[in-house]
């Protein structure tokens, strides 16, 4: 599993010593090095020294994100294997849509090129958006590591969001990009030339990651109440896979279903960014799609924080 969830792994001392960054140099040697709390505090102190009170929090979260990014770099073989899998599925699904479009120019506003681009974008976005089966937080709740995470001197939600941001940036560079390039090579996927469209796409992709994180946070924190949250998580995951347009583009859903699914948060995790990049959304439609994504992201943020607050009240630390 590419996710190691303990803070000790986020900020491994060996890695920090090897790194030549000033922050790493500020890490304490000797006695404090072995202590997790000492390590975290030293980062906070170093950050405060460098940026003053205002930048203090931000600096920590950026560092957390960077460590999450670096942590992913360790799984190079796994990433390559995943890339091969994405490309293989991309090919299979491309042939499916090539077959479906036989003798058809346009279907629900898409031509066959749009469908092929859609296929490769879905494969490329699996890892950056990460919309299924993520147990990062739930695992720490099961092992009890969550207690030390909660005790740390930074915001728990922001800590995990930063980690996810670092992970998503890694997966955009090392999974999204190569998958799309393979799509261009194998199936002549078209990449838009207008820089503006790319700008909107990456904004939409960022919102998609945040949305997906909001949802994952929710079903992970449910582990505070459930003995085994995997059933709930699997159901949410499959809803995300299905209603985001991953299995079937939402524009091929029956009309009555489209009226519902396009308003759900899931559409913002995949279909929206894809339509932005395909250039299907312009003007008001583009603005409202992005606003809907942002609105859902904020609603999920509120739900996450509420559930977290409830969960924290429930936590009883037994020590030991």
């Amino acid at each position: 599993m590419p996710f190691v969830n303990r803070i000790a792994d986020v900020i491994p001392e060996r890695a920090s010593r090897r790194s030549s960054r000033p922050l790493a140099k500020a890490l304490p040697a000797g006695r404090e090095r072995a202590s997790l709390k000492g390590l975290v505090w030293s980062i906070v102190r170093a950050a405060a020294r460098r940026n003053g009170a205002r930048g203090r929090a931000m600096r920590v979260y950026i560092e957390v994100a960077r460590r999450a990014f670096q942590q992913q770099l360790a799984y190079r073989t796994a990433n390559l294997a995943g890339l091969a899998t994405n490309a293989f599925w991309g090919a299979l699904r491309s042939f499916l849509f090539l077959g479906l479009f036989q003798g058809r120019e346009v279907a629900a506003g898409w031509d066959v090129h749009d469908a092929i681009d859609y296929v490769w974008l879905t494969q490329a976005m699996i890892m950056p958006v990460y919309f299924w089966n993520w147990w990062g937080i739930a695992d720490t709740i099961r092992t009890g590591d969550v207690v030390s995470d909660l005790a740390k001197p930074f915001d728990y939600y922001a800590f995990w969001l930063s980690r996810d941001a670092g992970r998503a940036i890694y997966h955009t560079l090392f999974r999204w990009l190569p998958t799309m390039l393979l799509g261009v090579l194998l199936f002549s996927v078209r990449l838009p030339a207008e820089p503006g469209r790319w700008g909107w796409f990456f904004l939409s992709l960022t919102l998609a990651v945040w949305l997906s994180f909001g949802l994952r946070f929710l079903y992970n924190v449910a582990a505070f109440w459930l003995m085994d949250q995997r059933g709930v998580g699997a159901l949410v995951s499959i809803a995300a896979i299905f209603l985001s347009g991953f299995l079937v583009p939402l524009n091929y859903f029956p009309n009555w279903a489209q009226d519902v699914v396009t308003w759900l948060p899931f559409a913002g995790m995949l279909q929206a960014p894809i339509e932005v990049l395909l250039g299907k959304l312009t003007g008001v439609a583009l603005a409202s799609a992005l606003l809907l994504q942002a609105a859902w992201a904020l609603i999920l943020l509120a739900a996450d924080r509420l559930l977290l607050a409830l969960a924290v009240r429930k936590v009883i630390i037994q020590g030991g």
Partner: protein
Amino acid sequence: MGALSSAKRLSGETAAGWLADWWADAVLYRRLIGARIRAQMQYRVSFLLMTLVSMVVTGSDLLAILILFNYFGELAGWRAGEVALLYGLAMVAFGLSEMVAAGFDVFPRAIQQGEFDRVLLRPVGIFVQVLAADFQLRRLGRTAQGGLALALAMAWTPIVWSPLKVLYLLVVLVSGFVMFSALLVLGAVLCFWTVQSIEIINTVTYGGTEMASYPLPIYHDLLQRFFTFVVPLAFVSYFPALYLLERPELQRLPSWLPGATPLAAALLGLTAWLAWRVGVRHYQSTGS
């Protein structure tokens, strides 16, 4: 257990001895699986919920196909019911092997953690121990929705059933089960050399079910050949469906092709078995 192990190693190389080994393994497998099922049934609610989840998760694939065909109507001359037949054949076979042979799916972990050393030390069959290592009854969910797809196919297509076709259907499902299981075994065998878990076999099995859910001619020639001659999953669904539906495509192919399904399964199964034996002999413990 004592009776089992003594029956086991009398064997030698005689045919009777081989048969005795085989029988002992079968009895042992039944016992191990029985224990696993009893254990899983201790948490009845959890079991039922997870089976339900498994059905919903795998059922979404079928729903996706139905939505696509509701819009597009047909794919290379195949309509929803006919594609449901392809999908159902692949899913029942894969669902069964995923349930029965899952021990080979989690085999990399056994190698990494040195668990396999313990397996080798026991005086009973190695293959059967690994086979029984991860039996999950809740995976019946996939098989169940594969069965649902088959039922839809029978309702929506004008298949003319004869006793021969019913028998053929059963043979095809068993052959598909053997093929997917053989692939899982081959994936496990790779780990004898790589130690790490190799995702490639997941691509072949899961990707294979995706491929097998649609008519073969929509794919590029290379993929068609790959899934006919290298990983012969076309024999799980496409060729059998041609025969069951009496499709016109069959006239351009050798007419015995659908009948070759059990042969393909036997070949792949034999390959996997031999590879497994070579792998076990090659095994070196990780020492952990």
